[in-house]
């Protein structure tokens, strides 16, 4: 018997490329599964104690109620402000607060991991530190955001009238925009949390970031900003984080304009990924592990 069995026979070039490609796809699938499981476990943990949603639901409902009163008083003697009617402004606020509330609190867990030294333990495990946190954070946040969206829809029906979603394309665009905004929330908060490698208590940076998100598009549509501020805001990621999804939900700007808003969000998302990776790489070089 010849020594050249099937196992050692070289495959034709086309087959070898296909096998390699298959291997890469399988490896990528395995990786994706790993992060998928992390996200799913986090989502399941979040749903384990349904009572824990109560605080968030109360706070979210309170803000929606207070702002519905503010807009009612502001529009007491006019039909609209900058083209937004009372109903649109209330729906705008309901939608704008979903990324802020549902995806807005990754920072505290991340900062705590940094301070407690948990980062040293996680950094040495066989997964991407950023990817693992992203999957874990988004799994939990997706549940939070879904609950808030349902509560928001109910509140909106009570306070503002019928749901402004007019077509399946409108619904799909709104969903995509909210998910991109949520992902940006994670990535930017991650980058801020990484400043703990240099400054122990970095919560002040988060407050400032949070307020910029609030002012540029959450509390008010960016059309309300003075002209100069609006022009500056266009060069920042903040309108992509609340304004874009809230605008798409509350007053459908048409397919082309919605796509343009989502494209701008995607560009900022790519920039946020790069910033996040850079912040982690720079910070990791300062990590000192002392036994334990």
């Amino acid at each position: 018997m010849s020594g050249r069995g099937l196992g050692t026979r070289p495959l034709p070039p086309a087959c070898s490329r296909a096998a390699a490609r298959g291997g890469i796809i399988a490896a990528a699938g395995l990786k994706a599964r790993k992060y998928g499981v992390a996200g799913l476990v986090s989502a399941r943990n979040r749903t384990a104690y349904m009572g824990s949603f109560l605080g968030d639901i109360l706070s979210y409902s309170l803000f929606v109620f207070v702002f519905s009163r503010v807009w009612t008083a502001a529009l007491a003697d006019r039909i609209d402000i900058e083209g937004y009617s009372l109903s649109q402004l209330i729906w705008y606020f309901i939608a704008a607060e979903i990324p802020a509330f549902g995806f807005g609190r990754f920072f505290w867990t991340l900062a705590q991991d940094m301070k407690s030294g948990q980062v040293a333990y996680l950094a040495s495990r066989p997964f991407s530190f950023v990817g693992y946190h992203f999957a874990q954070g988004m799994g939990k946040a997706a549940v939070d955001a879904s609950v808030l969206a349902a509560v928001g829809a109910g509140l909106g029906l009570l306070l503002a009238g019928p749901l402004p979603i007019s077509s399946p394309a409108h619904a799909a665009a709104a969903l995509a925009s909210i998910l991109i905004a949520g992902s940006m929330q994670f990535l930017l908060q991650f980058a801020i949390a990484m400043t703990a490698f240099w400054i122990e208590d970095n919560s002040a940076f988060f407050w400032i970031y949070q307020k910029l998100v609030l002012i540029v598009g959450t509390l008010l549509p960016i059309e309300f900003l003075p002209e100069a501020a609006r022009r500056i805001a266009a060069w920042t990621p903040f309108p992509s984080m609340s304004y874009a999804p809230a605008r798409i939900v509350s007053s459908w700007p048409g397919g082309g304009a919605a796509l343009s808003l989502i494209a701008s969000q995607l560009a900022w998302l790519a920039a946020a990924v790069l910033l996040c990776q850079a912040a982690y790489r720079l910070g990791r070089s300062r990590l000192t592990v002392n036994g334990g």
Partner: protein
Amino acid sequence: MHRATRRFGSPRAYLRFLSVSFVVNIQSVLEYRANFLLQVFGMMLNNAAFALFWGMLIGKVGAVGGYGFDDVMLIWALVSTSFGLAHVVFGNVRSLGQIIQRGELDLYLLQPKDVMLNVLSSRTLVSAWGDFAYGFLVLALLPGFDPGRLALFCALAFTGALVFAATLAAAESLCFFIGDSSGIAGAVTEFLLSFSLYPETIFGQGMRWVFYTILPSGFIAFVPLSALNGLGWPAAGIAACAALAYSAASYGLFRLGLRRYESGNQMGSRV
């Protein structure tokens, strides 16, 4: 009188105790000076974001619910300084429920000073210093600033701080009765702050009783605003009476709950 003094201790001794606690707390937070300054200025910037919101909104539509920009800013100044003062002096006020739940009151029960005052004043909240300073900054930037107005503002901020501390401590003390009161306490904090920071008139007549009973925003923001806008010291007197009443009720609730307290059998020390 003698019996009351013997049970609670002399007011002068308590003032001395509170000032010593205050100084120790300041020294402790100033150990990390850069962090302290960062948190203080961060909180001031945080509050300033809402000034921008109101500036832009009132700039577009004029007064909201009859409140102009100066009125809204005066409310922010009062609430911010009151909230800050309550957490600067009584920094443990929002941890009280957790302390009770974990059985960590033992440490304070063994000490000669009143348990509630001792627990509340044994910590200061760093970011609250930013809230405290922000109110004075806003007041100084608003038109009509003079020493008389500053004195009235200080008195109203003091009564507001008492109402804040009393209400939040009462919500946390529910822990003695229902076990975990963190949900209720969190909701009371959020609701009290949110209702205090917006014009009273936007909520309508139906909700006004809430602001003068279970969520006393009226005595933190709205009565003090009337005092600063012309009613003067008589309105401050009403705020002071309310502060005393809320403090007494909160103290009573805590003492009542303390009878149900079960020790956590924990070893602890205050350093």
